[in-house]
């Protein structure tokens, strides 16, 4: 399993090929690419800046990957997340999973993305014509938030 957090772009073909090249047990590679869009909630997005928690980020991504390996019969996986300032149409995240059969590859790839979206310490800030703003979490998880009431 490869986990990387980086400013630089990544190369999809290289990353996916690494999961199946010379690996004749691999029958399926499911992958997901997340990209910067030019609009969010109606406003134009000029740039997107990703902040993260160095140290915890890598640990959480490795934990997410291990959890996927525990749940499904996987042969390999790659998780790459970019940080810093990105522009519309630029890739943000790649999750690619290799398995013998497609069902496990799909399930694990989607699981890792869902988990990453709610557990990995990344935060997005958008620059729009109206200025800068932090992106709100899509899941307004009031129950979890309420656990912090003291």
């Amino acid at each position, binding site marked *: 399993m490869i986990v990387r957090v980086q400013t630089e772009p990544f190369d999809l073909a290289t990353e996916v090929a690494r999961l199946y090249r010379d690996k004749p047990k691999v029958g399926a590679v499911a992958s997901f690419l997340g990209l910067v869009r030019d609009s969010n909630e109606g406003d134009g997005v000029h740039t997107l800046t990703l902040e993260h928690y160095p140290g915890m980020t890598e640990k959480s991504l490795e934990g997410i990957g291990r959890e996927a390996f525990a749940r499904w019969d996987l042969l390999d996986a790659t998780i790459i997340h970019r940080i810093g300032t990105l522009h519309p149409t630029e890739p943000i995240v790649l999750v690619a999973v290799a398995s013998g059969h497609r069902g496990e590859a799909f399930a694990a790839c989607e699981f890792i993305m869902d988990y990453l979206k709610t557990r990995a310490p990344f935060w997005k800030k958008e620059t729009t014509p109206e200025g800068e703003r932090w992106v709100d979490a899509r899941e307004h998880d009031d129950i979890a938030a309420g656990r*912090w009431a003291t």
Partner: protein
Amino acid sequence: MKLKILYFARLRERFGLGSEALDAPAGVDDLAGLVAWLRQRGPAWAEELAPDRPYRMALNQEMATPESSLKEGDEVAVFPPVTGG
């Protein structure tokens, strides 16, 4: 008790603070207690860390709950819900 506290994203900007070394007073022995103590620092702290705000915390780089116990030297992080991916 000496602790390292990190703030991220909107909270980092609001508090004007990325990280700090703290010496928490006696009685602060879990994350809930730490947050209650931080709220007394001023309006921004009281508002952002109010019980109905959706902030999250990590203890030694693992997601944590209010009941998580603190010990000398722990690294605590306070941040908004994550939005990566």
